[in-house]
């Protein structure tokens, strides 16, 4: 080992803009011949890509197990990340750069039997928190900013000081050596040391090691344990086959609140700090303009939200922020001062307007990009392959595509789009196919937005191909979903996305939830999508036997529970139940299952037999029974008469009528018994009640087509003894005009019709 120093550990705060600036200075000062960066060594294969001009941060290094992409680690890098700065510096100065850490291949593999190092044993001591508490700070981030990042002295010395402080912190760690986190940390540092030893052996003389501050003391060669101990630590670790690449990332995902965040709550602010420092290297009075430029941005954003923010207020806010920093004893203005100042001066003491600008400013909308040459994650590669095979190119501009599902090529496109939608990659949005009620046409509004690339990466965690990933995601959603209607929708989605593998778990959890479900309305709502699946599913080669048995159980239970569920409903609940009953009835009619139909109708009959059911529901049920032939016309007339009799409240009568007459109106036109009852009822309503009922009645009748309404009116005129035409139909239709159409239809039906 050479006497003079050969390794400079640069202990940084991950994603700290101040650390990034210090690292840049330290590297300039040091002029290393090798840069080591804490990170998965697997990323070495793709590190060159970071120098590509098309690589735009934020990006994330992604290392995943090849056969199970669910196991993966992300290493997000923003332009203000010290790691990014170090790698870019090395690439720009033609200095070799390597990543050093415990290889991900070990981290992603199954731990061997009996290994006591499963993660999550003891709490990880927060080294920065300990130091900050010692300095009297409640917020560790602020301590770091004040004590380290906002300081402008020589960077190499500063890193030495950080390393020393961390050594003191590490001494206070009294967790047992078999603690999971301690073991993992020991392994990681052993791996880092191994990288340093290798480098020194290869003859590098000035090695800069950019690592998390906590590791810095362990990387000083003077403190290295014997080689054998490190080798021992890294022996016999499990491995699995992994691959590495870069993935585009967004500011939002850097923030703490999102899934694979880097713990940076304010990337936009950090970006601002970093940009400011890189632009303005003059150490004279940088903070004033730092605060002012930030507040100008806040004000512009507020103005964009139609809120007043004058230039004079910005001056005042920036003055307040500076004074606040002085009151709080901070060397420079931080985000909390700026927020407080903006709240007090620009927003009149209210936090609400600031929240409006928070997302765009403090978090930011940066979207990274990765050059085309970067290795693709398997899912992205599969997507590109499928896009080629169905000939659907991703375009940035919005375009409308209408697909005819009877053609195999276009069906494949539809399936791909539906699968992507399940995966949360919203390339296409459903659009109105326009003027057709057929189910064979589908319209999509396609637009490939850059952030979809990030969604693809995320979806890539579910599987290696679009199909398997979509199936896996559906299965996971089914597992978590408590709601029958959601499950039923998932069944429908599986159908259009052609995912027979996904359907099995959905049906399984549907079966389980059905057994536990007591909410009749939820069951009613689930019937129709399931029935559609069975009706059209076998066309697409889906095994629907499982669904059929679930549906049967569902319909029977819904029918049994229906009468009780129709009790004591208010107007809103009644309308929900009515919609549910209508949907379930449509669903049952779709199926060619006489037995099931019988059970369902029995449920409806039981509802119809009850008094006290809300008029709207009772009327609808009566009508459904009439249409199904379970009620003959005289029964229907009797019911109508009872419902519309003087003793019944008129408002109930109107609701019943609304339920009964919804849908086809021919009933009133063609049934001689019903119209007089309605007529007599309307005529008998007291005037003040009539005024209340008028809107309801008007709504009931306005649902019908104008010619139908005209027919009804003419029938009414005839009832009241007027001298209208005897047959209303004759005046409504011009038979001469209709004749060619009638002939054609007759010919199609194979009836011989001659015109005479």
């Amino acid at each position, binding site marked *: 080992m050479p006497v003079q120093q050969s390794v400079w550990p640069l202990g940084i705060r991950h994603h700290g803009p101040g650390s990034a600036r210090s690292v840049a200075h330290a590297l300039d000062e040091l002029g290393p011949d090798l840069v080591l960066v804490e990170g998965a060594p697997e990323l070495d294969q793709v590190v060159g890509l970071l120098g590509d001009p098309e690589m735009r941060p934020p990006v994330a290094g992604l290392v995943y197990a090849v056969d199970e992409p669910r196991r993966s680690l992300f290493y997000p890098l923003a332009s203000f990340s010290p790691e990014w700065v170090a790698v870019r510096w090395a690439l720009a100065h033609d200095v070799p750069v390597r990543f050093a850490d415990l290889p991900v291949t070990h981290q992603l593999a199954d731990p061997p039997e009996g290994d006591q190092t499963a993660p999550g044993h003891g709490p990880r001591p927060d080294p920065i928190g300990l130091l900050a508490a010692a300095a009297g700070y409640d917020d560790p981030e602020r301590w770091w900013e004040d004590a380290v990042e906002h300081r402008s002295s020589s960077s190499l010395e500063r890193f030495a000081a950080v390393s020393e402080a961390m050594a003191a912190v590490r001494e206070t760690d009294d967790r047992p050596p078999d603690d999971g986190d301690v073991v993992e940390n020991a392994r990681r540092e052993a791996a880092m040391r191994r990288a340093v030893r290798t480098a020194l052996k290869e003859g590098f003389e000035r090695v800069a090691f950019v690592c998390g501050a906590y590791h810095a003391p362990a990387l000083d060669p003077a403190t290295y344990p014997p080689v054998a101990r490190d080798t021992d630590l890294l022996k016999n670790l499990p491995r699995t086959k992994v691959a590495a690449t870069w993935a585009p990332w967004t500011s939002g995902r850097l923030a703490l609140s999102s899934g694979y965040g880097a713990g940076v709550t304010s990337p936009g602010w950090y970006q601002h700090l970093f940009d400011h420092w890189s632009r303005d290297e003059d150490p004279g009075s940088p903070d004033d303009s730092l605060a002012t430029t930030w507040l100008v941005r806040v004000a512009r954003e507020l103005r964009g939200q139609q809120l*007043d923010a*004058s230039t*004079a*207020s910005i001056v*005042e806010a920036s*003055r*307040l922020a500076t*004074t*606040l920093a*002085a*009151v*709080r*004893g901070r060397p420079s203005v931080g985000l*909390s001062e700026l927020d*407080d*100042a903006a709240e*007090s*001066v620009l927003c*009149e*003491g*209210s936090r609400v307007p600031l929240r409006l600008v928070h997302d765009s400013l403090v978090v930011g909308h940066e979207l990274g990009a990765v050059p085309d040459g970067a290795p693709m994650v398997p899912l992205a590669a599969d997507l590109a392959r499928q896009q080629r095979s169905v000939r659907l190119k991703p375009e940035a501009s919005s375009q409308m595509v209408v697909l005819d599902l009877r053609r195999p090529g276009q069906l494949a496109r539809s399936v791909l789009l539906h699968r992507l939608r399940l995966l949360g990659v919203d390339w296409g949005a459903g659009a109105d196919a326009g003027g057709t009620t057929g189910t064979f046409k589908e319209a999509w509004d396609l637009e490939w937005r850059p952030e979809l690339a990030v969604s693809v990466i995320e979806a890539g965690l579910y599987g290696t191909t679009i199909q398997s990933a979509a199936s896996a995601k559906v299965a996971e959603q089914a597992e978590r979903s408590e709601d029958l209607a959601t499950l039923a929708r998932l069944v429908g989605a599986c159908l259009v996305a052609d995912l027979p593998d996904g359907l099995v778990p959905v049906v399984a959890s549907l079966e389980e939830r059905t057994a536990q479900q007591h909410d009749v309305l939820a069951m009613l709502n689930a019937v129709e999508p399931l029935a559609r699946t069975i009706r059209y599913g076998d066309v697409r080669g889906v095994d629907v036997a499982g669904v059929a048995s679930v549906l049967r159980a569902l319909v029977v239970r819904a029918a049994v529970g229906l009468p009780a569920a129709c009790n004591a409903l208010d107007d809103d609940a009644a309308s929900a139940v009515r919609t549910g009953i209508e949907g379930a009835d449509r669903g049952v009619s779709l199926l060619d299952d006489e037995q099931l139909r019988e059970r369902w109708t029995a449920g409806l009959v039981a509802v119809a037999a009850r008094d006290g059911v809300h008029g709207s529901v009772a009327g609808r049920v009566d009508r459904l029974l009439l249409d199904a032939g379970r009620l003959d016309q005289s029964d229907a007339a009797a019911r109508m008469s009872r419902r519309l009799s003087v003793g019944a409240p008129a408002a109930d009568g109107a609701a019943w009528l609304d339920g009964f007459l919804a849908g086809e109106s021919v009933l009133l036109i063609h049934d001689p018994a019903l119209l007089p009852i309605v007529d007599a009822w309307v005529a008998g309503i007291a005037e003040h009640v009539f005024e209340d009922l008028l809107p309801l009645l008007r709504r009931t009748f306005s649902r019908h087509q104008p010619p139908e309404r005209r027919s009804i009116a003419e029938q009414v005129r005839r009832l009241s003894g007027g001298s209208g035409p005897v047959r209303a139909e004759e005046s409504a239709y011009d038979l001469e005009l209709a004749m060619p159409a009638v002939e054609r239809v007759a010919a199609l039906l194979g009836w011989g019709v001659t015109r005479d």
Partner: protein
Amino acid sequence: MSDPSTATSPDVLRAHAEQQYAAELAALDVADDRPRPPSWRLSPWAVSLYVLGGQLPDGTAIEPKYIGSRRLVEIAIATLATDRALLLLGVPGTAKTWLGEHLAAAISGSSTLVVQGTAGTAEEALRYGWNYARLLADGPSRAAMVPSPVMRAMETGALVRVEELTRIPADVQDALISILSEKSLSVPELDEQVQAKPGFNVIATANNRDKGVNELSSALRRRVNTVVLPLPDTLEEEVEIVRGRVSAIGASLSLPPDLESLSEVQRVVQVFRELRSGVTTDRRTTVKSPTATLSTAEAISVLTNGVALAAHFGDGTVRAADVAAGLLGAVVKDPVQDRIVWQEYLETVVRDRREWNDLYRACRELG
């Protein structure tokens, strides 16, 4: 009596902040080695220590005056150090006036320059008036002029407080605009200008709940920094505030309460919080909220009242019966609606708490 407040000014009912805490202010003045803005008696750091409480290096304990967010106090102090006015906004009883008084006492050494805003406040109260006898005798002169507290503050470089800004009619409020933006007050009768000395600033308070107030004009809003004072966050915090204030007031009224048994404080504050938030502390029961604000200040007055009752008519121990009447009066502001709310609360919440039995009975007796 060993209480410093009564020691310095035994003959007044309520001493000014700077009199009551003269010892603390003096100790802070000695210990404070940080830069002070022009005309400030203390540095901003020392002011925040005075308001929020703490301990000086020499061991002097500083009593907290405002219990709540440190952040808000820091914004308020920083605002006064700039040349923008400070507007303390909040529902009644959130210590707006209290905080303003202590800030003025700590920064200018005097909290007596104050304009009490009412619907009848005239422009003279913000600018200047005339001593008409002298005006008629000698014509307009400085000697015939009666300066307002605002004008005196400008001349001495001190803080002036404007209480209840939103009660002042809008046209009178506007008199503040030129004072706040130009820091000068013109006296056309004498053809002169009064220019503010460094250190001059305005602390205004306004509440955003009471009806019948005059909205602040946006011109005025642009010239002030607004700090919204919230109701206390936690039960403990509020109990601490009430307990401290009740003891202080009791001492100045020469009431000898046994402060140890102020367990009633806890109960009263809890009743107030539950009715205010519409849900019980265990978050199990929803209760209706009355029309009254039920601020911390009202809880303080209920308890002071109870202390007085116990001292004069009881044995000196504050019991449920002593606070019950005050509670009823604080909650039931609308004789019809609020009474129903109160009865419901009594029957559904108070009654079920076994250890609150005495309170329940005392309240029932009052009807």
